[in-house]
């Protein structure tokens, strides 16, 4: 092993193996893709066997699932929700609309690429992705969490200016926010822990 295995690193590895078994999901269902979620959760495909459960409030959730297109107005709400979530948190872009605009590629009121505004951990391509694709994507995410590689959420703390600048350019003014992200990064030692 190239890196020296400290006690903390070993402990983190064990924790990651345990933590990957429990991922709670908050779905932000604006688009049509939400229709693929009920079969994924219920008897046919049963998402709960991986420990993935739907949760109802941002404070409790680990995954923010954006199903489909985001208009400029709804993006403001998504940013509020994302900032309320407790780290580690993973944004999953669901469907083509979050990747490049999809069928709304020439619309004036939707955003084209979600990763300009929020740190996206994983995209599920397709219009719309079938439950098999969702399950396959989530098992990939679970593997990454288990290896401790799912670190996109740190990006929001580290490159906060980049995301805020993009958001403000899009909205044409300051972003309404109730969470002081740089202060949180200091308080919980997120920036130091990564070095």
């Amino acid at each position: 092993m190239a890196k020296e295995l400290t006690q903390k690193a070993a402990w983190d590895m064990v924790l990651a193996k345990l933590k990957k078994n429990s991922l709670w999901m908050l779905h932000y269902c604006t688009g049509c893709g939400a229709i693929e979620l009920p079969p994924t959760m219920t008897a046919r495909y049963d998402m709960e066997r991986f420990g993935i459960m739907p949760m109802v409030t941002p404070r409790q959730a680990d995954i923010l699932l954006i199903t489909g297109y985001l208009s400029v107005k709804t993006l403001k709400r998504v940013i509020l929700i994302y900032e309320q979530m407790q780290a580690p948190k993973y944004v999953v872009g669901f469907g083509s609309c979050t990747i490049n605009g999809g069928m709304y590629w020439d619309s004036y009121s939707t955003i084209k690429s979600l990763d300009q505004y929020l740190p996206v951990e994983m995209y599920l391509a397709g219009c719309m992705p079938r439950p098999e694709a969702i399950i396959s994507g989530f098992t990939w995410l679970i593997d990454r969490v288990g290896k401790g590689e799912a670190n996109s959420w740190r990006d929001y703390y580290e490159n906060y200016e980049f995301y805020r600048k993009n958001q403000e350019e899009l909205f044409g003014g300051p972003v309404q926010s109730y969470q002081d992200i740089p202060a949180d990064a200091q308080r919980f030692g997120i920036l130091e822990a990564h070095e």
Partner: protein
Amino acid sequence: MSTLSLVVWIIAYPVIIFCIGVLLGGYERKFSARVERRIGPSWIQPFYDVIKLMNKKTNVSHGYMHDVAILMLLGGTLLTLYFVPVPGFSYFSQFGDFLVISYLLLIPSLGMALGVGETANPNGSIGISRALQMLAGYEVPFILTFIGVAMKEQTTSMLDIINIQQAGGFMAWGLIAHPLLGVAALIALQGMLNEKPFEVIVAPHEIATGPMTEMGGKYLGIMFIQHLIALPLELTIYINLFLGGATNWLEYLVKLFVVWTALISVNLVFGRFRIDSAVKFMWKISLPLAALGVIGIMLNIA
């Protein structure tokens, strides 16, 4: 009981009960999944959930009372736990009868009310008001069954009641000897454990999990731990009063799982009552049953 073994028991007891709670919680989720023809999560899924929640990187506090009350929630449950006898450990039960237990059972609800009050979330406030209304619903029949059992056995000590039932054999079990009280307490227990049809406090589709709305990370983790300890605790109180307690851990576990299966089976086939219907059900069905049972005991019928 020697001092050393007492100290070991004091430390080990909550841990053992927590492990049993994890099994019961996992069993509930697996059981529901199988009924719905799903595969369901792992048997120790609640353990993974707790580990995940306690290791969140950020934890937002809403103020001093939020921090303190969440510990009051857990502390109240742990304190109650020590007064409830289980096979092998009943040292503290000789100092507190079930009047003490019925007082201590109120502490977690009050702790939750104080802590959630500070988060200032409307869903949380609705959840708390529902929790306190349900408390008025199930606590009255539950206390009445306590009184009935105490009148029948002429003692308020939980240990003595277990001994009387075990000496008298199967026919002396509370559920057989005074069935009205047993059934009334079972209905109250369903409400106490917040299972459907009385699942009005944590109603995810209605008020976004009520008291837990603003809880995240370690705060939610402590609430989960409290729930996983309170679950076997409240089932144990029922077993001790109405199912003859237990002489060894195997018998104890079997009785826990039997009662729990009965409760979650009811949970699975019902929808959710509205809060007024839930309290009405408690006062119109459970309370008269308990009252009839007490009258029967006073007239030496049952």
